């Protein structure tokens, strides 16, 4: 078998991402059909199906596979995480929050549907995420699904995503927001929504407690990595390249890594996080780990 192993072609990350993102997009389209009242469902679909690289759902599917699960059992959880990510973007873009008019190169949800519908569409996506995991997860013992729902709810509420957003709002225009505040924001705001899909995928795929925790540590590294790279790109790229308003963080006087550490030190920090992330995968079967390894490298080296 060794000989056969060596003959295996190297892992084709691009093909993997395209194939997985396509199945995610198809499943999202089916999971949220147009119903009455039509406008809310159109608003939900507008932001949910607006493209995006589907990094979060693919992480969920890959984490399920690395522990030996079939990715289909993690698909509803993968979609749920994308629904919640979308909801947080819709609410984050509102005039009372970041007041953004452009997202992924398109007018933001409230620009198209109004603030009232944008709030409701976000709330509906949040609720549906939980309903979908609870109802649609196939062939997994209920105890695992319950555990996954507990993890997801914790990561997006006042101990997770929302805490990050609150501290983020507070830190705007504040002169004394230091590295500690910055890390709190990103560990909660960004990392929580990368940790959740990885942990959910591992739980639903049948990973041991030890594997779940190892993958949680991996996810925390790439979550922070994601944000450091985002901050660097915000300074170095144009709006067109990013598909969103560049330099927004500077204008809003937000605390960022380049502002606190400088660009060079921020880059060094990114390299360190990337290395640490990969170390957490070293105990897994290298073939099964290939997608997560490639995802970590992709997050480190992405251009938008």
């Amino acid at each position: 078998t060794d000989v056969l192993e060596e003959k295996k072609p190297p892992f084709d990350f691009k093909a993997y991402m395209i194939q997985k993102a396509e199945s995610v997009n198809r499943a999202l389209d089916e999971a949220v059909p147009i119903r009455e009242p039509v406008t809310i469902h159109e608003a939900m679909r507008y932001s949910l199906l607006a493209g995006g690289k589907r990094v979060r759902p693919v992480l969920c599917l890959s984490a399920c596979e690395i522990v030996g699960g079939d990715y289909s059992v993690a698909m509803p959880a993968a979609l749920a995480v994308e629904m919640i990510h979308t909801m947080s973007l819709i609410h984050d873009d509102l005039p009372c929050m970041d007041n953004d008019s452009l997202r992924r190169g398109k007018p933001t949800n409230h620009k198209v549907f109004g603030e009232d519908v944008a709030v409701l569409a976000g709330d509906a996506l949040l609720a549906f995420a939980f309903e979908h995991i609870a109802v649609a997860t196939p062939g997994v013992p209920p105890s695992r699904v319950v555990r996954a729902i507990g993890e997801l709810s914790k990561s997006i509420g006042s101990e997770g995503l929302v805490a990050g957003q609150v501290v983020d709002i507070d830190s705007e225009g504040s002169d004394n927001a230091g590295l500690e505040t910055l890390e709190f924001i990103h560990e909660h705001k960004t990392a929580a929504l990368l940790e959740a899909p990885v942990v959910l995928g591992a739980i639903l795929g049948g990973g041991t407690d030890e594997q779940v925790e190892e993958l949680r540590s991996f996810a925390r590294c790439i979550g922070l990595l994601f944000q450091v790279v985002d901050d660097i790109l915000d300074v170095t790229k144009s709006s067109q390249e990013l598909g969103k308003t560049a330099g927004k963080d500077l204008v809003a006087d937000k605390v960022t890594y380049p502002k606190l550490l400088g660009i060079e030190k921020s880059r060094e920090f990114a390299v360190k996080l990337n290395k640490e992330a990969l170390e957490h995968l070293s105990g897994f079967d290298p073939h099964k780990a290939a997608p997560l390894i490639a995802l970590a490298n992709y997050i480190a080296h992405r251009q938008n």
Partner: protein
Amino acid sequence: SPPPSISTRSRSAQFDLKEYWTTLITDIDRKLDEAIPVKYPEQIYHSMRYSVLAKGAKRAPPVMCVAACELFGGDRLAAFPTACALEMVHAASLIHDDLPYMDDDPSRRGKPSNHTIYGVDMAVLAGDALFPLGFQHIVSHTPSNLVPEARVLRVIAEIAHAVGSTGMAAGQFLDLEGGPNSVEFVQEKKFGEMGECSAVCGGLLASANDEEVESLRRYGRAVGVLYQVVDDILEEKSNNGQETVSKEGKKKGKSYVGVYGVEKALEVAKELRDKAKKELDGFEKKYGDSVVPLYSFVDYAVDRGFSIGDSSSQWEF
């Protein structure tokens, strides 16, 4: 439909709903207080607590959830976490409904609404945090020796569905949009869904069978709308029919009374009461006296024979 038996009616009259209710409110208030401790960043917890722990809240959804659970001999300890979650997601919906670009209500239950105190941004986030906290609370607090995990999943799905795009969010959307003949739909969605969900969850937690759950569904929906219709009638009477905006800032066109007048609203109330009682008649044959709390809920909705909590606040199913 056959009327409920005389014996049940008298038992229902003797049953001390006020005692049952106030005892449960005390328990639920304490559990909610414990469920939302203040941590960093404190302001979001203060904002969440402000709406969930509002004084004088009647806790109708959690009390109905517990009563439905006890109908089947379920332990109320099995129902408490879900009962608390119902209040959390309900509070989240109300916080968002009150926002300036929604109903634009500066007050709720006679107190400033959440965004009036904490700002629009915190109010949006408090709602966003209370929805998942409800689910988290069910998962972490439901005793696994009393409720199988498959049932916990059904409860979570039920609550998520009730607040979602075809439930309460749909009701709020159509309320904002207005339009002809929308009042029934809006009332069903905004008030019926919560009553329905509360009763169904109680039954699910006590391992009620599917037929029983469907019966609770019809019962809860009828009672939820019934409370609102009676509230509208009482309000109309206290206003002596003067053209006015209600305490909740609701315009006349958005209530049964405003659209159809008191006479028709009274007829609707009677139909809803009979509908709810008819569902309970089936339970009485099988479960006897344990159906009494659910009967007295219906009678109370119509009679309002005593006040619970802050008498100035509405029922808000």
